[in-house]
Every structure is written in structure tokens, then in C-alpha cells.
């Protein structure tokens, strides 16, 4: 008899059905943000190969570019050698790549089905997008930190003031780029499309952003293309953060991007990236929310 009762008992049945509880839109937004961001971090912890590759890529760049061009180019400006010029560029490139990948991981989630679990949960679509963006920024900062550890070995100057300037910049750029990734991914159905985007759009954008070589001495067509590239201003701002000397904290450096004859200051670069980021984030949220 007791057996019969046990068989019909609800499973772990304490508490009222969750369906009975009410939650507002704000609740659904913040819950979306936290669960999605939390999952990004969980996946980072589980995916050990990502940590290795995130260290390997920048190291390879330093060795190849540093050894290859360093000697040939010599000093870039008074007191700045090629590695010191390259270092902020590599940091920027790392953050760009990580953020775009993170945003575009929506394509993977869609292909492996997990996206549906998210889309049908009682969390808002905007919350999912913001959660992805925040998760992307955390991953990007983690990757950037790994590269920063290399600084002392490369004789790159790094102090608290530089870090305090650079980290908020990196977060801002990461937000923009994650948004770009989500925007592209929200209309993409397959990984093939993702590969194409990477090769035809993202890689050229990174190479023409001034991350690896200065843009002040290039042919006119390349100069125009690079100034249309939003990444250029991100790289420029981060380079400002690393190379500006104490007295001229917001002033131009010898490598500053020159727009209409005016060398950009760090804050002007930041303004451009911030506007671009806001537009991309709004577009990503809109596009992601509209999908069925």
C-alpha cells in the first residue's frame, strides 16, 4: 500500500509550481543577461584548448612580426621600437577576434540546437543579446590579460595608469565587436556562412586596422579603406593608451590616424567606437529579437 502512494508521489515535489509565480519584464531581462553570460564563462572553463590557442596566436605574431620586421624597421619613433608599437595592436586584435567569435557563437548554438532552449525560455531576447555581449567582454579581457603577461618579457612599458586607461577601452571595443558578431550571426544559418564572413570581412578588417603596421605611410587607396574601417579607431585608441607620455595623455602620437588632416586623439577615437558600438548593439538586439 505504501508502495502505491510512493509511486504516485510527485518527483521531488516541494514548493509551488513555478508557473504560479509572476515575474516582470525587468526580471526576464536580467535573468537572460546572467544565465547567458554565466554560460559563456562556464564554456571557457571547460574548453581548455581555447586558453592554449589564445596564448599561441599572439606569441606567434610577436615572434614572426617581431623577428621578421623588427630588425628591418628599427625605431618607429623616438623611444618606440617595433615591438612596443606592435604590442597594443596585438592586444586589440586579440580582443576583436575573441569578441567577434563570441558573438558569432550564436551560429554554433543554432546548429547544435541549444539556441532553441534559450529562445523558448522565459527570458527576454534583449537579455540574451546583452548577456552574450557581457560574456564576450569577459572572455576578451581574459585573453587580453594573457597577452599582457607577456609585456615585461618584451620590454613593453606597463603600469597602473596604462591599465586603468586600457581596460575600459577594451571593454567598450569588445561590446561593439560582440554586437557585430551577433548581428551577423542572427541571420546566418550555417557554419559555412561563418567561415566566409571570417575570411572575406573580418580578416581584412583586422589587417587594415593598423594593428600590425602604421597607416600613415601607405598608398592613398589603402589609407581611405583603413579610415572607413571602424577597427582602425579602436586600435588607435588602445595604442594611445599604451604610448602616450604622461604630459600628453590625450594628445596625438606619431602614429595617430589622421582624419581630414586632423590627428585623432584618444577620446575622439573612443567617441567614434562608442557611437558605432551603440548602433551595432541596437541593430543586433533588433535583429536577434525578430527571428522566429
Amino acid at each position: 500500500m505504501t508502495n502505491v502512494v510512493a509511486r504516485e508521489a510527485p518527483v521531488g515535489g516541494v514548493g509551488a509550481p513555478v508557473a504560479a509565480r509572476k515575474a516582470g519584464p525587468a526580471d526576464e531581462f536580467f535573468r537572460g543577461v546572467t544565465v547567458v553570460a554565466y554560460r559563456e564563462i562556464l564554456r571557457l572553463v571547460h574548453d581548455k584548448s581555447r586558453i592554449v590557442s589564445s596564448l599561441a596566436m599572439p606569441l606567434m605574431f610577436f615572434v614572426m612580426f617581431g623577428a621578421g620586421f623588427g630588425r628591418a624597421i628599427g625605431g618607429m619613433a623616438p623611444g618606440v621600437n617595433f615591438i612596443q608599437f606592435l604590442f597594443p595592436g596585438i592586444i586589440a586584435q586579440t580582443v576583436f577576434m575573441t569578441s567577434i567569435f563570441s558573438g558569432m557563437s550564436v551560429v554554433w548554438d543554432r546548429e547544435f540546437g541549444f539556441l532553441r532552449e534559450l529562445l523558448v525560455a522565459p527570458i527576454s531576447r534583449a537579455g540574451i543579446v546583452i548577456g552574450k555581449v557581457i560574456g564576450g567582454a569577459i572572455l576578451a579581457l581574459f585573453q587580453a590579460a594573457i597577452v599582457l603577461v607577456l609585456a615585461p618579457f618584451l620590454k613593453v612599458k606597463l603600469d597602473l595608469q596604462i591599465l586603468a586607461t586600457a581596460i575600459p577601452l577594451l571593454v567598450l571595443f569588445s561590446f561593439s565587436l560582440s554586437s557585430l558578431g551577433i548581428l551577423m550571426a542572427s541571420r546566418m544559418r550555417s557554419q559555412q556562412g561563418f567561415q566566409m564572413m571570417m575570411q572575406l570581412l573580418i580578416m581584412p578588417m583586422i589587417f587594415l586596422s593598423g594593428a600590425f603596421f602604421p597607416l600613415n605611410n601607405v598608398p592613398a587607396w589603402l589609407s581611405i579603406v583603413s579610415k572607413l574601417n571602424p577597427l582602425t579607431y579602436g586600435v588607435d585608441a588602445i595604442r594611445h593608451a599604451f604610448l602616450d607620455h604622461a604630459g600628453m595623455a590625450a594628445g596625438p602620437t606619431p602614429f595617430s590616424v589622421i582624419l581630414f588632416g586632423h590627428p585623432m586623439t584618444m577620446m575622439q577615437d573612443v567617441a567614434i567606437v562608442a557611437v558605432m558600438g551603440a548602433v551595432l548593439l541596437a541593430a543586433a538586439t533588433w535583429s536577434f529579437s525578430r527571428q522566429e
Partner: protein
Amino acid sequence: MDAILAEDLVRRFKAVEAVKGVSFAVAEGEVFGFLGPNGAGKTTTINMLCTLLRPTSGSARVNGFDVATQTSDVRRSIGLVFQDTTLDDYLSAEQNLRFHAQAYAVPREVFEPRMEGLLKLLDLWDRRKETTRNYSGGMKRRLEIARGLLHHPKVLFLDEPSIGLDPQTRRHIWEHLQDLRQREKLTIFLTTHYMDEAEYCDRIAIMDHGSIVALDTPENLKSGVGGDVVTLKAEDNAALVRELKEAHGVDARLENGEVSFTIAGGKAWLPKFVREASQSLTSLGLRGPTLDDVFLKITGRAIREQGADQFEGIRRMRRRR
């Protein structure tokens, strides 16, 4: 109150009308099935009920909530198991459930015993720390059922719950579902193209080309076929068909070297026929009507299980990469 109430639901994809105005009601505690071939509009209907697709026109209520305007309330009150797995392969079973609990705002003190209870019931407790990547198809499906029930939903939606599973695993899953249904007083809504799975339903809606063509209990549907199905083989099948027509008024079909027809009270009729038959019979068979026969009678076609399974195999291979 009905657990699900659909009124004239329509969904159009560009030029194609996938669901052409379906209406039905599912009572609380009922197991209700949509049966039909692939492309009949079953999944589209389930997606509209789960708020994943907006109806082009018509309306539906789930647990009293409108699927177009009260999406959050609908979502909180239902559990879902999709056709393709929607687990995060990188995470363990427990982490997948924990994620779900957070997304559905299940408090920790409710979650812990609930997870333990469900995982033990579904025989997954010992392997909860493993990543789901290593799980078999049947285990994944069981975990998805556990996940779908984690937040105490009142209605569980199952889209082709046993697609790609072998018959033994399929039966096993259904033992669990029957058990859970009893314990949780669940309403279950499922789509399937497997006849044996449809037999578990209290009522079945047969769907074809986006419309419901029949809706009743499996017993009533089968009795609508008009008797038992007899299959015969004789040395001269054509002569047998003639004899059936002339002496007994039976319209038999000759297919694949087999004569088959439906007749009321087949068990009593067959021995009598065998005694009196002038043809020499080489084989005979008698069975009760199946839902396949029902579908055949209504639509004039058989549900092609074979084709669907091959397709499924290819899709699964692609996904495994």
C-alpha cells in the same frame, strides 16, 4: 479549463500554407497526439503553441494564456522536448539542468531535490557529472525530459519524442513518461509519425497537408476502419479477388502478390471462408486494424516511416561533426 485550446490556427511561410486552420481542445491530464507524415504541419503547430512561431491568424491558449500576447506566461507553464537535441554538449547533465533552472527562475531549494528526484527516476543520477557529449541517444532524450519537467510545468510538449531511437529504448522512454504523467498530473502533447507511439495517446488528431483529417480515441479511429484486416495468398490471386467479389461482396486489393481487405468480424468470417473457398490458399493472415490502416483509409496513402528514418539518419550524421 482546457490545457490547450486552438481555434483556426493558420501559419504561412511565404507562399506555403504549412498549417491551414486547425482547431482542437486538449483536456487537463490528457495525452494528446498529432499523427501524420513528415511535412504535415505537426512541428509548425507545436511551435506556435510553444510561442516559437507567431500564428499568421487564429488563436490558441495554453493553460489559459494566449500564445501570441502572453508568451512569458505560456513559456513558464510548459515543458518542451524538441525533435533534435537542444542540450549543451560542453556541459554535464547537472550543469545543463542548473542552467535551465536559472533561466526559469527555479529557486535553489526547489531545484536540488527536484533534480535528484527526476534524475533518479530517469536512471541518470549516477552519470550526472558526465558531459552530455558522451550520452547515448536514449540518455539524451531522458535528460531532455527531465529538463523539460524541472520547472513543474503543467503541459509537456514532445516533438517526435522517440525519433531516431530503437524500439526498445522507445518503449523504455514511454514507461518513464507514463510514470511521470501519473505522478505529476501532466498533460502531454506530442507529435509523432510512429504508429506504436500514437497508441499511447488518449486521443489522436491525424494531420495531413496542414489540416486535421480525423480526431478521436485510437480505439474509435480503428473501429472506423470497419473490421479486421485479412491478407490472403492463393495460387491464382486474380481468381481469388473475383471470387471474393462475387461470392462475398468484398472489394479486395491485390498488392505485392497479396490479396488484402477489411471485413467486420474477421475472426468468425475467416474459418468459414477457408472451408468454402474454391481457390487453393497458400497463406493467410488476420489482424486487428492499426492506425496505419486508419491513415490509409482517410488519405489513401500510407505513412512512410522508412523514408523518414533515412532522412533522420543523414541529419544526425551531419550534426555529429
